[in-house]
């Protein structure tokens, strides 16, 4: 193991489609956010989640090992399907100070933006998440 192993940062940005019945999504989000907040903090992951009522958009960043484990867990989560990775790899520094829910609601405008940005729109979606959580100026 290299001495700087734990200092490396990886990130992952993905979109997926929710398969939970609309009537249950509010309760699902409460559970999901409560659970994710504590768990992500405990393993050093930061990022933001956005839910449009039909799609999830999430950015996660942190130590490669922790992120890989989380990716595997998210990949097996049965609350969503059609997961598409929009961006991934190593990053020089974190973009998010913590993990939080950026938005959860039924905005048609946002849903179209998220769907429309799937091809090559990763920077725009990252900017959207950062603006929501107010971390756009985190990296000077």
């Amino acid at each position: 193991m290299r001495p700087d192993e734990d200092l490396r940062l990886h990130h992952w940005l993905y979109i997926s489609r929710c398969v939970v019945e609309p009537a249950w999504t509010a309760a699902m989000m409460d559970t999901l956010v409560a659970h994710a907040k504590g768990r992500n903090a405990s393993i050093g992951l930061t990022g933001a989640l956005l839910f449009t009522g039909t799609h999830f958009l999430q950015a996660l960043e942190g130590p490669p090992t922790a992120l890989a484990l989380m990716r595997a867990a998210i990949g097996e989560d049965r609350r969503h399907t059609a997961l598409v990775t929009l961006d991934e790899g190593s990053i020089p520094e974190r973009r998010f100070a913590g993990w939080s829910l950026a938005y959860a609601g039924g905005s048609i405008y946002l849903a179209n933006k998220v769907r429309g940005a799937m091809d090559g729109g990763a920077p725009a979606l990252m900017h959207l998440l950062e603006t929501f959580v107010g971390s756009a100026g985190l990296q000077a």
Partner: protein
Amino acid sequence: MGEINVGQSTVHIVDSDPAHRRDLAQMVRQLGLDCHPFAAFSDLMEAMGYLPAGCILLAWRDRAANEAAALGAVVRSVLLQRPEMAVVIMAASPTIADVVQALRAGAIDFLEIPVQTEMLRPVLDHGFAVLPARVARQQRIGQASALTTQLTPREQEVLRGVVAGLTNRAIAERLRIGVRTVEMHRGNIMQKLQMDNLAALIRFAILTGILDHGLDAA
């Protein structure tokens, strides 16, 4: 707070551009909905007290002079008076900051100007889908607030303690009264608020915003 006028198919339009306002009104009527057009935001705010609950399509046209933050303030000023209204902000080539500000302030959706019917229809569907629950929530808050005014100041203090999760003993120490007195106040609170269990009381407290006032050092 009185009864909310539930005209759940009314769309209030605010747009200083006469041509776009007229086009919007026509689209709204073609969708079979009632339409109240306003030329200025101040006209809407003046009429706000008696407008039927519905969707508000609000054109944001003076971005050059204002930061996106001002957009959030506009949305909040509407919702402060009529929290049940489904507010949709419209803007020409909006920035992400505009959209985020509007949604964070409580707008339910966003539209790009010029608005096309095929974009307007799903957004109004969304608005009228969430409206009944918003109206019902406001009516519950109105009723709950009316009940709260029946509590004495001391009962309100005890209620805040209960909601903050304090034991009767802790509340008694904090208010420098006897534990028995706290128990008596709790009984009276439940009776006045027409509640028979603690869970209902907590829901009530969340609804009326009693929790927001907090309890110093609770």
